[in-house]
Structure formats: C-alpha cells, structure tokens
C-alpha cells in the first residue's frame, strides 16, 4: 500500500507539473469529441436547464452519449447538405432566454461566468439546437403520413387532455392540434429509429480516461 501511495504521489506531482488541458475523448467515425467538448456540453446543459453545475463521471458519460448522437447528426447534416441555422436566429433565442430568466444583463453575465461559459458559447449552442430541429423537420417529416381516421381516433381518446392543453379552442382547432401531435410523435419515432441505426453502424472509439 505504501509503495502504491508513493507512486500515486509521484504521479500527482508529475501531473501538477504538466497538465493535460485538452485531448481526444471519443472518436466517432471521422470526427472527434474532445474533453473540452464534454466539459462545455455539461456546463451549457446545466445552465440551460437551470441545474447546479456538476462535473462528475456520471455527468461526463451522459454528456458523451449526447455528443456522440450529435456527431452522427452533424455527419448527416454535412452529407445531406441540410441548412444550418443563422447566428441571427441564435441571437434571438439567446435574447429570449436572457429576458425570461434574468432581470438584467449583469446577472446573466454573472450566471454565465459561474458556469464557465461565454455568450458566444451559448450562442453556438442555440445555433446548433435550432439546426438540429430544422434537420429533424426536413429529414423525417416528409415521410410521415397521418390519416383522418388516425386523427379522429386520437381526438376521441385524448379529447380531455387536448381541451386542457388548448382551452377555449374549437373542435376543428383541437383536431388540428391532434394532427400536429400525431405528426410530432411519428417524426420523433422516425428520428430515434434512425439514431439507433446510426449508433449500431457507427464506429465509436471511447478513450476511457476521458470519461472518468
């Protein structure tokens, strides 16, 4: 035990003198996810969800999983030449968030600093999220077909819930809402099926030390 501790002390001493500040954490096909990407993803996710910052191994693994999925989506967007959201659109989302959650810009800046983020980081995050939403819509929605019968059945089964969600709206509006819900469900199903397939087909190499 003593010698192990001695070695550990030596190593820690070594680390303190030379620190890995970034590295490849995961290789997904031809793209990489770095330590810093995982770190930034946790910080952005916790900030946007209003959760306290937590950088433990479980969080890192969850972030890694998200980023692997994103890498596969990025690849598809690149290959399919799907449009990306603009910075102006991202800025509008950023502005909306700031107004909703923070009384003033100073508080917003302070909160960002607490999470180790900059407005530019958040802007990039918003841009990416908008791009993904657009991709899902364009890639999967055209394949979805919802029949009137399905809409009527759904309406009958979920009428109460629909009325609660859309108070004061006419039956036609509620049918429209049922139609949208059904489309959304099927788009989601197609998207997740596609993602599962991508996960099975992709070559993913995890660098174990980065996920601890």
């Amino acid at each position, binding site marked *: 035990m003593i010698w*192990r501790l001695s*070695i*550990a002390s*030596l*190593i*820690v*001493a*070594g*680390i*303190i*003198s*030379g*620190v*890995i*500040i*970034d*590295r*490849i954490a995961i290789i997904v096909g*031809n793209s*990489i996810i*770095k*330590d*810093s*990407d995982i*770190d930034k993803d946790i910080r952005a996710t916790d900030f946007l969800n209003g959760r306290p910052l937590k*950088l433990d*191994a479980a969080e890192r693994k969850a972030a890694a999983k998200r980023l692997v999925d994103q890498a596969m989506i990025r690849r598809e967007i690149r290959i399919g030449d799907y449009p990306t959201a603009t910075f102006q659109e991202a800025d509008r989302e950023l502005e909306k968030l700031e107004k909703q959650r923070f009384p003033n810009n100073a508080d917003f800046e302070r909160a960002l600093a607490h999470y*180790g983020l900059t407005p530019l980081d958040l802007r990039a995050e918003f841009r990416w999220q908008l791009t993904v939403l657009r991709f899902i819509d364009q890639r999967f929605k055209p394949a979805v077909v919802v029949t009137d019968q399905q809409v009527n059945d759904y309406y009958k089964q979920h009428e109460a819930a629909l009325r609660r969600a859309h108070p004061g709206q006419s039956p036609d509006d509620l049918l429209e809402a049922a139609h949208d819900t059904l489309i959304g469900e099927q788009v989601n199903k197609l998207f997740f099926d596609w993602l599962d397939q991508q996960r099975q087909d992709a070559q993913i190499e995890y*660098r*174990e*030390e980065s996920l*601890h």
Partner: protein
Amino acid sequence: MRPAQMRRLLPPGSPLYSCILLVFVLLTSARAQDFGGKTVTAVEYEPALQPLYPKDMQNMQLVRAGEPLDLNQVGASIDRLFASGLYDDIQVDAEPSAGGVVIRFITRPKRFVGHVGVGGDLNPPPSGATIISDSQLALGTAFDPEMLEVASKTIQEQLRENGLYESTVGVSTIEDPLTHQVTVQFLVNAGKRARYETPAVRGDTKLSDETIIRATGWRWPLIHKWRQVTSALTDKGIDGIDKKYAKKDRLTASVTLTSLEYDSATGRAKPTLDIDAGPKIEINAIEAKVSKRKLRQFVPVYQEGSVDRDLLTEGAENLTDYFQAKGYPDVQVDFKLEPPKDDQQVINYYITTGPRRKLVHIDIQGNFYFTDDTLRERMFLRTGSFFTRYGRYSESFRKADQEAIANLYRDNGFQDAKVTSTVETNYKGKAQDIAVTFHVDPGEQWTVANLNIEGNTRLDLSPIRNELASAQGQPYATINIVTDRNRILEYYYSNGFPRAAFSYRTGPGREPQTTNVTYSVREGPREFVRKVIVSGLYRTRPSMVLRDIDIKEGEPISMVKVNDIARQLTNLGIFANVSTAIQDANGTNQYKYLLYDFEEAARYSFNVGFGLEVGQFGYTTNNLSDAGGVKGVSPLISFNVNRINFRGIGQTVSLQTRYSTLEQRVALNYIIPRFLGSLNRTLTFSGLYDTTQDVQTFSSRREEGSVQVAQRFNRASTLLVSFAYRRVSTSNIQIPSLLIPLYSQPVRIGILSAGYIQDHRDNPLDAHRGFWNTIDAGIAGKFFGSQRDFTRVLARNATYTPIGRNLVLARQTQIGAILPFNLPSGVSGFEAMPLPERFFGGGGVSMRGFGDNQAGPRDIGTPTGLPAPPTTTPTGFPIGGNAIFFNTVELRFPLLGPNITGVVFEDMGNIYTTFGDVSLAYRQPPVVVYPSIPGQAFYQNFNYTVQAPGFGIRYKTPIGPLRVDFAYALNPPRYLGFNKNESIQDLIGCGPEEIGKTPQCTATPQQLSHFQFFFSIGQAF
C-alpha cells in the same frame, strides 16, 4: 512524468489507475482553465517528428509562442490536426514555465496501408493477386492491426474454398517511421489440395446420382479419379448440374451446395448437394414456327431458371420484336400458362404473325437542321435491301428512332423538339409494303446569350475557355453543359483541386429564345505533392520508375497526370499491376504523399504454339515435278522464352523459335525500351538463324545479326532504322544452273535500312476505315562489309473506305525494286543478286493468283544468247526477281449474320526481272524457238501482269477473321518444266547436247494452275 509513462506504469482498469484518474480529471478540469490567458513561452511536439508537413502544421496548429493561451484555440487545433487524418491520438499538455506556460502536443501518428505482398508456398488457385485482393487492404488508407486479422480470415476462407484445407496464413508488417506506410506481407503455406469425393445428394432429384456426379465434372471421366478441389470447379460443377436439368427441361431446378466437408484423414472433401428438380417446363410456340434455339434465346425463363409472369411477358415482347424485325409488323404474341399436370408445366406462346410486310420507304418530314443522312445514321429502321430482304422494322425500333431524332435536336438547342411517326401499310398499292414517316417538330432553337463563370478565384480558366461548348451564340443544350462541366472539373482535378464542385443556373437572355448561363465553381482546397513514395519494387531498380514519375514535390496533385504515368509504367510490360493512391486522400492537410505501388510481373514467360499452314506450296526435295507448287499442309510448332526486366531496368531478352516443314528459325533479341531517355524509342539487338524452304526452288539459310532503333512519333507513325549483317546461303537448289559456285556460295550482306510506317487503320486485324503506308529503303555495299552492292526499296499503300453502313472498299498497292551496282564484269544485275535477297511473291497476303512464292521469273535454263539454246535444261522453278508490283482491290460485305462476311477481289501484279521490266501487259510475252531445237518453244519472259479475280469468306473471331479465299488467275504463266518424278541427279547429267533430246533432259510446257485457294487467319491486308 508524462501521461504516456503513467500508462506504462499503471495498466488501465486497475483500481489504482481509476483512483489516480479521478484525481487527475479533477485536477485537469480545475487547472485547464487556470492556464487560459497565460503567455505561451514555447510550443513543443512529442514525438518531435510530426507526420504533418511543416507548412500544414503552421496552418492547422493555432497555438503560437509569445501569445496568450486561448483554450478554444487549443481545442480548435486538436480538431484541425485530427481532421488531417494523420493522427490516431492527440493530447495537449501544459506546463508552467518561467513567464508563462509551455504547451506540448503529444500525438500518436496514424499508419497507412502500403505495399501488400504475398509469399511462401503458394499453390494457385487462388493466385497471389486474388489473395492480395481478398485482403481488402487498400493502398493509402488508414491501417489498423485488426484489419490483418480480418484479412487473414478471408484469405484462409478463400484457400479452403480452393481445397487447401491444411493451409496456414501468417502475416508480417514493417512500418516506415517517416511516412508511416505499413508494408504487409502475407505468408501462405498452401499445403496439399484436397480432392472431391462422392457427393451426398439429397432431395427430389429425378436423376440418378451417377448422372448428377457426371454433370458436376468433379471426377475424371473413364478413369473415375476424383479431381482436386478448386472454387472454380465447385461452381462449375453446380452449374453443370443446373445445365443438366435445363437440358431435361427442368428449368426451375434448384441445386444448392450445402457443405463441402473436409476429412483430414483421407484428404478428401465431401460435397453435400440439396436438389429440387422441379417440374418439366415445356415452352411451345403455337401458330408460328420458332426453333427451340430461338425460344431459348428470347424467353428469359431459360436464363433465369425460374418461371414467373414478368419473365414470360418479357419473352412475349422479345418474340414480338423478333417477328417484327423479320417483317411481321402486325404480329401478336400472347402466352398461356397451362395448369401443371403429371410433373409437367406447359407454357404456350400463341403467335399470330399477320401478313409479312416489307419496309420500303422511310420519310423524314420537318427536318431542316440536319441532313437526312445524319438522322438516318442514328436510326434502327432500315428499308429492305439485298442484305435485309424485308428491311428492319419493329414498334420498339420506331419509337427508339423517334427518341433518337428528338434527342439530336434537343442536344442542339431545340429544347421543345418533338418527333412523331406514322406507319402507312399498303404503300403505293402494294399490300405487303409499308412506309414510315417521321414528323419532326423542332420548335425554336435556343442559344446562349452570355456565359458567365463564377467562383474560380484560384485557378485561371482562360486556357480552357475556348473549349467550352456553351459559348455565346452557341445552341443552349443540356448536353453542352454536361460537356463543359466535365471539362471544367477535369481541369480543376488536373490542377490539384480534388474536391472541386460544379453547379449552373440559367436565366432569360435579352433576345427571345436566348439564355444566360452561369457556371458556378466551388474550388475546395488545393492539394500538393509532399513526396512520391514508391513501393513493391524488389527486382526493379527504383531509379528506373522514378525516371518516369515526373512529379515534383510541391506541385499541385493532378490525378490525370498520376494515372497517365501509371499507364506508361504499366506499358513497360514488367509490372503485373501499378496502383496509385494519395495517402489519406480525405484528410484536410494540403501536402500529401503520393503513392505508387508495384506488383512485379513474373520474370520469365514461356509460350508454346502449334499451327498449321495450308496452301499451294512445296518442299525443297530432289523431286523436280510440280515446279508450280503443290497443295500442301505444313504443321508448325513455336516455342518462345521471354526474360523481362533484365538487370532490373526494364530490358527484355527473348528467344523465339519456330519449327515447321517450311521454316526453322531461332531468334535471340535484346530489347532496350526508352532508349536514350525517350519514351517511344526502342533499341533492339537481334541474332537470327533461319532456314527457309517455302520457295520450292531452294533452301536458304540465313545467319544474321542486326541492330534496330524504332522511334514512335505517335500512335500511328513509327520510324525504323536498322543495320543488319547477314550471311545467306542456299542449298538443295533444284536448278542445275544455280549449282554454279558463283551463285550458290554463301554471301555476306551488310545493309543499312530505314523504314517508316503510318498506320491509321481503325482495327489492324480487320480494318474498316483508314489507311496504312509503309516504306522501307536500304543500301548494301562494300563499305558495310557486304559482298554485294545494291539498294532496295519497298513501298506499300493500303486504304479502307466505308461505303454506306455495310460495305468496305479496301485496296493495296505494293511496289518495290532492287537496284544492284558495282556489278562484276559479265554479270547482269539480275544474276548478281543472291536468290534469298530477291523479291519473291504470290500467295494469300500478296497476290492470290499465285501459290505461295510462285510469282515472277522462273528457271529457263542457262541462256547463252540467241540463237544458241540454253546450256542446261529449264526446270521452271521460281527464281525471284528484282522488282515487285502487286495491286489488290477488295470489296468486303456482310454475308450471314454479324459474324460471317464475304469479299470479292481482284488481284493483279507480278514479280519482275528488273524494275525496267515492270509491265502491265496482260499477255505473257511470246515464246522463243531456237533453230537448233526445232519444234520446242521456250518460255523465257515472265514480265507481265497476272490478273486474278476471286471471292472469299471471313468468319469473325477475337484474334481476327478466319479466312478462306478462292482465286482464279485469268492468265497464269506458262513455263517449261517437268511433270514427272525426275531426279535432280538425272538432270545434272544432262549435257547441252542432250537438252530436249533425251526424255530425262526434256522439259515440257506447263502452266501454273488457274485456281488457287488459301485458308488462314486475318484479312489479306
């Protein structure tokens, strides 16, 4: 301590490792942020020698010494370096230093597939090339050791499929530390090949096991020994069973090889076959006669081995086309699948042919832009003619022709062109005649108002601007845009832009029916050659190939140039394969290694050939009869050995031998390609020993040494300059006069020759258009050590002119002369030329009115000058001449189907005593009568032109047409000779006083045969 060292001390997965990692991560996440903003005092790399080219490193790695550390730039640098494709792993380490922080990039370079070879104890099949191909290791792609395991398994599987069940596969690798190319060598120990054994046959086979086994071909017939297992033989065996069932009309039979189990004790592999014979399928043509062979050709059930409605419908369509093409445009074809009964399924095709019609007229209306011939060239429909009695007509052909005409108009800017057609039966009151009229509605022609090119910022397109088809004022057509796209992208690819992309858009021009065209180019990154890496050379000197790889470091990568060089190297004939690739082609780095990988061909090649010559020729014997040649057969055998890549510099040594009853030849050649650095210049040293008996008059023996330089200027033109020194001698001379030592003794000839060849034929084996010129001139003299002084010129001109679609008019003229000088006193120019140096001619490739080498002057005895008779008996054997003139005209036409053609020809010409004796006279000059030999006519002059019309048949084969020619000479030469078996010894005994007086010394009038035939391969010229 570096992390790498840490990993060595503490294996991943150990509890201590995890514990330390936790500490490490916490420290890392905490401390990485702390370094941000500190001044970078130095940037280091581990290892110091990075795989990236320094210029690329400068562009891709963004952290700079002297600047504050930006962690985003560290991340961006990792992204960029990885995107180069040259790294497997990248970590960035920071270490505090005086005044800031030292940044260190710790990397692991990626490895790439280099040369893949195979060695050991191979026992093809599979061949080395198949094994390499099975490994799936592609040159220049990322290398992963796991790939070797997969490759070894695949190779092992391939070996087993070929009966090599006891084979082993090993693999070794060598990595080049500088380029990280990995050479892979598979070591195969093939072991003994298994033999088949009696298959287990399961299922409803309807055939006996013995019949099935015979159909496989896995057992030698008669001796009944099982053959060795190979993948090809296994497949052939299954195919054989399929065919057997097909012969028995069981077209839906299913034959599956379920296993091929090896028994190591016996060394045999036992096949298990699952067979379902299926019902007998009977296909009948009802109401019209269609042969079984045609049904098999047109009903795809036979090819597919299954019966379904789609295939039967396709069969009906094919039969409809077939009958329409035969002149039944109204044919109706239907089919009925009768219910299966007693193991039999009957399919009946009901064919109502309707009346037979002849397509007699095709009219094209509304065409103004092209000539009608231009349109007709593109059409399938044909009116009836001598070759196609009823013409060619079917609905599908008519529609295809409509589309072809419309497409031609559209390709020339008539965007809205429409073509329809009408069929008129009972044309001009004849019930069986039909006419088709095509109606062309071209619409308006659109032209290009302006062509604008955008996005070409780094490459000047002006050199190709004039080559673009969509220029201002030119027709606006999609095909022109496609052509331009290909030209522009090819230009970009040739100049180092492998990812260039092209798009276009159009808008209305200012004038009506005009279009503004804009080509948009996305250039993408430009890539340059970092270095050329050559691999796979074991016996070849690298300098030899590097001399040809004219690619400099730093020049833009042009795959067009790279592939052209690979083609040139392949053409050297010393490599079985030349592969090229860019290392990590998809990486974003700009400077890339260019790879040339070679698979050297086997150094020695042997070939043995057997053949047969059939024709009018003879053998040199002591038999004096048939001086005009006899119909005969001459078997031949040839054996050649080539040693390529001699001394590892691409030179070739070859030994060629040929033995037949007419000729025995040994030739040794030493060939130096690319002589004096020119790609198209070849130097050849040759030694030759040849004895020839194809002229009946004598045997010639030739011992020759020669040197020749051949300079090829382009695909069609070649200049040859040679010097030959030879010793020629004659033996077995049939003519007593030639036994005089002066003419039969060996002669040394030194001759300097130059030849020029222009070959513009479309297909040298069977030309249809073009021309072919050759001229060869030489001078022999004492200054070259020659014992005879003469000049020699031989020229040939051949042309091939297509007439319409089916006919070819071919003609050839050959003319030549030998002009002796510095003659010994009392010897004529004709006499001075040794027999083997004279022109001989006649035969299948020169003049078909003669048998082989039967043209020209013949032995007329030894003349002493009028009025004295010859001092020796004339034998009538050909003795060659000093001038040649042959002219051939040939009309080639289709005769039967696509493969059999016919020719009619007219050959004329002869071999003449001297060039001054060349005469186009039709009649042979009159005979000479000597006063001392009254009553006997002597034929002494052969200087006239023999005319020989004829015809021939050609059968097309991959090695050229198989040829039979029949010629009838209208005026074959008459001569004095013997028609009985007179011995040469008898003739030698004839003194001048006995000539014409004793039976053995009396030659009688003879005439060469009017009729000649030839059988060979290749057109006459």
